[in-house]
């Protein structure tokens, strides 16, 4: 059922699609779109297979592939997934499929758009399955190029600014990561071969670290370097300023990918790299990380409340929601919080994807996203209002919808370790409810804005992109075990290792 080299297939299937699109004559843009869609279907199918066959009780890596890549540096093409990666891989497979459909109305430079989009897909799956630090870094950086062009060419009025800001911010983070990566490479010796290593499973073994890598200052600086790199991606306040710009300018599908998948790379990186490699520093830094999370929750929510632009509102709400992930991940006294954090990563992916898709729908019709520019839309677009209502309620953490469970788990878990921080973070939920309900009221309720009396209802294609996400949001709201089952064993192991 699961083919051999399934992870490689998932990574390179989109790339094959991109290669095919290169040879489609210019006069067949629809054919290019169809190829792009077909290139994302097999990964979705394989992801479903992975979901079924993944061994929930194994705390090691599964579906491992390891081949030497560059012997001179002892670099391996080393893939494998555990409970932390698999929800992200499922999310990526689902969202890329949905985003190709959501990109159907792209009519400018169609070839370039879909080639870059598929390249982005390749790099994302690569990041979530790489187990060699070097390979991880290559995929991590590879994602920047397509993203720069996707925002810069197909974006809104200030696209150049947003694109370069995104690129510069992320690159600052990743060059620090590069330096830390090399310090770890030279600071560790693989016992079996006596060579330096990029292998994350080996680097996680603290006994391979050489004396200078046991130096407290070096470890501290290394942790800080990695943390800044990942914090920019998450993004935590005060490293967040690139995100609202990037979101506002990016086309709808790219916003979805950005918020749905790319932000998770930051928290994923912490779990995959920082925690295993520097567990002692992770514990030492936990309180600061929790504070970063708290500030992001509150600051993000307050900023969101002040926005007029719907996309900016969602961007700030993302910062706020990712703050919960950070808070949950900085608790090591129990596994509840970290389970909630990873579940929140998945839930935020689906909910924000819905939110951005919904904003895209209204923007395609009204050509603006000004919250005060609408009013009474529930009358003209009742189905659309229904979807939006669901997404908004999910985002503000209504019981019965997915985000409630993950945020509740985070708060319950973190309360045992950080009482005051957790209590303060809870106000973030109130603020979130405030701005989402207020937005709801201004856009959908009240007197109908005459200008938009004739707006067409949500189309079948748009509904098709939203429905699977809506179903997941509802299902996970009642029964989160499908995801919690996947992640539980690995996270238990992670926490034990960090504390241990």
């Amino acid at each position, binding site marked *: 059922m699961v083919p051999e080299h399934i992870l490689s297939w998932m990574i390179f299937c989109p790339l094959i699609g991109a290669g095919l699109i290169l040879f489609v004559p210019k006069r067949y843009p629809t054919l290019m779109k169809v190829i792009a869609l077909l290139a994302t279907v097999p990964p979705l199918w394989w992801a479903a297979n992975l979901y079924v066959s993944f061994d929930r009780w194994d705390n090691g890596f599964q579906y491992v592939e390891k081949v030497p890549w560059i012997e*001179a540096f002892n670099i391996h093409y080393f893939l494998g997934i555990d409970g932390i990666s698999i929800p992200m891989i499922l999310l990526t497979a689902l969202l890329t499929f949905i985003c190709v459909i959501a990109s159907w109305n792209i009519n400018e430079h169609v070839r370039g758009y879909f080639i870059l989009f598929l390249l982005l897909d390749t790099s994302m799956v690569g990041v979530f399955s790489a187990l060699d630090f070097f390979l991880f870094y290559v995929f991590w950086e*590879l994602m920047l190029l397509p993203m720069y062009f996707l925002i810069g060419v197909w974006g809104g009025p200030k696209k150049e600014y947003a694109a370069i800001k995104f690129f510069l911010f992320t690159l600052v983070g990743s060059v620090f990561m590069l*330096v830390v990566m090399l310090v770890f*490479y030279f600071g560790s010796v693989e016992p079996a071969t006596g060579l330096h290593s990029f292998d994350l499973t080996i680097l996680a073994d603290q006994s391979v670290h050489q004396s200078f890598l046991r130096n407290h200052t070096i470890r501290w600086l290394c942790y800080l370097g990695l943390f800044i790199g990942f914090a920019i991606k998450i993004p935590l306040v005060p490293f967040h300023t690139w995100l609202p710009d990037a979101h506002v300018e990016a086309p709808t599908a790219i916003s979805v990918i950005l918020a749905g998948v790319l932000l998770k790379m930051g928290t994923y990186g912490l779990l995959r790299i920082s925690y295993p490699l520097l567990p002692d520093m992770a514990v030492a830094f936990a309180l600061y990380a929790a504070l970063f999370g708290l500030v992001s929750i509150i600051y993000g929510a307050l900023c969101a409340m002040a926005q007029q632009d719907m996309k900016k509102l969602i961007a700030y709400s993302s910062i706020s929601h990712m703050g919960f992930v950070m808070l949950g991940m900085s608790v090591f006294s129990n596994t509840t919080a970290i389970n909630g954090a990873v579940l929140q990563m998945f839930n935020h992916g689906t909910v924000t994807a819905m939110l951005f898709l919904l904003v895209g729908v209204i923007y395609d019709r009204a050509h603006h996203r000004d919250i005060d520019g609408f009013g009474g839309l529930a009358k003209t677009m009742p189905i659309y209002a229904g979807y939006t209502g669901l997404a908004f309620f999910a985002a503000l953490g209504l019981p019965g919808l997915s985000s409630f469970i993950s945020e509740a788990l985070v708060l319950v878990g973190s309360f045992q370790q950080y009482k005051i921080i957790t209590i303060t973070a809870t106000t973030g939920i109130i603020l979130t409810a405030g701005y989402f309900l207020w937005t709801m009221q201004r856009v959908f309720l009240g007197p109908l804005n005459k200008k938009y009396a004739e707006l067409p209802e949500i189309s079948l294609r748009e509904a098709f992109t939203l429905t699977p996400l809506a179903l997941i949001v509802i299902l996970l709201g009642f029964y989160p075990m499908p995801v919690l089952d996947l992640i539980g064993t690995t996270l238990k192991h992670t926490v034990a290792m960090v504390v241990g």
Partner: protein
Amino acid sequence: MTGIPENFIRSNLQGIPFVGPEIILTGAIIILLIVGVILPYWRYRRMFTVLALLGLIGSLLPLWKLPTPQPDLTYLSGLFVWDWLTFFFKLFFVVAGGFVILLTQGSSEIDNVEYSECTVLVLAVTMGMMLLVAATDLLMIFLAFETMGILSYLLVGMRAGDVRSGEAALKYVLYGAFTSGTMLFGFSLLFGLAGTTDLLEIGRQVVAASQNPQDKILLIVAVLFFLAGLLFKTASFPFHFWCPDVYEGAPTPITAFLSVGPKAAGFALFIRLFYPLFTTGGEGGMYEAVSGLDWPSILALVSALTMTLGNLAAIHQNNLKRLLAYSSIAHAGYLLMGIVALSDFGLRAVVFYLVVYLFMNLGAFAVVTLVASGGGSEEIDSYRGLGSRAPYLCVAMAVFLFSLIGLPPFAGFVGKVYLFAAVIYKKIYWLAVVAALNTVVSLYYYLRVVKAMFLERPTEASQVQVSLGSQALLLALLFPTLGLGIYWQPLAKVVSGMF
């Protein structure tokens, strides 16, 4: 190593095959000169290209016939050494010369009247560089250094009647004369100290002299004077001022040549001069500076300043050739990191980076040449919206620029990883962090070009025509730029064998 009983080749006659490449190149130069006089040279552009390329390829033939390079295999009375460094850089310069000839062929900046001289000069500079990397004798080093230098001044000023080209040449000459004079003075100090011009012998004497306080001052002065010549050739701080003006004024293919050829020769000379003369050790691939001569610290500082200045100055350039000139200054700074690292690993990093740099930098200049020849100019403004007018050129340019930034999956990334690794291995963390931040700065100005090409609207609609030959040339440069980024094990093996 069959048939040669010992490493020192006593008879100069036996040594002649080792200078085969230079002899063949000289032959090619003479033929080109004669043909240029007899035939109406302004009509036969293509013929000169073919002859020059034949000369370059011919010069490689003796390389395969010679014995395996060895670290101490000297020839012609010990003037030259036949080691892997010599072998490798001879190949390197031939490849660089070949690409430049092809680039010149398609350039509209050099007209047919000047073309025959241009090919002659490119070959002659190549020959000078070949001699330079093989030389192990101060006198020979200086001769080769000047052969390369003086002929490249000529190349820069080749466009008769062009004021900018003349100005550039004059600046280059004045600066060059000053710095090589200074270097020669450094040579004379060492000669006075050791009484010989042979590098290995001097090296032994330097270690002894460093114990003596009076001689030590002499040595310090000599090191500083050496640095003047070498930092000038590699366009490093504080001898970089000539670089932007010369690069802007020279015809673009010649600029491309200067930015890879003499720069690489300068770094080869760093390895040739500084390691035997001013380091000790070598066991386990680590060296130490001769006690009391802390040139690595000076160079580390120079490296940091060079890359920072180069990158900061590049931000404000609107002329692409000036921008690339500053970028090449910055790259000299990156390359110095490998020299500073005082290890075989660092030297490998330098050589590896030079190979990568050869392809990506020539590539970027090739695109500049083609755009200028296709009706555009060298200003960034004329690259606006070029992505839709000349997609192939612009995608190639983007690849070269991303590689220059050092982003995966391009070769520049691997080269940078090598250099970063070298300084981190030596535990000079501050330099690694400076270089890392510089990468971010450089992203900004390289992206200005990418932005102009792809993110902005074209000002005119006409397509830029690129001939099939030029496309093939670009492809030949693109292939290694991409290929070495994805799988560089073969090159890694080659450079590991060198040191």
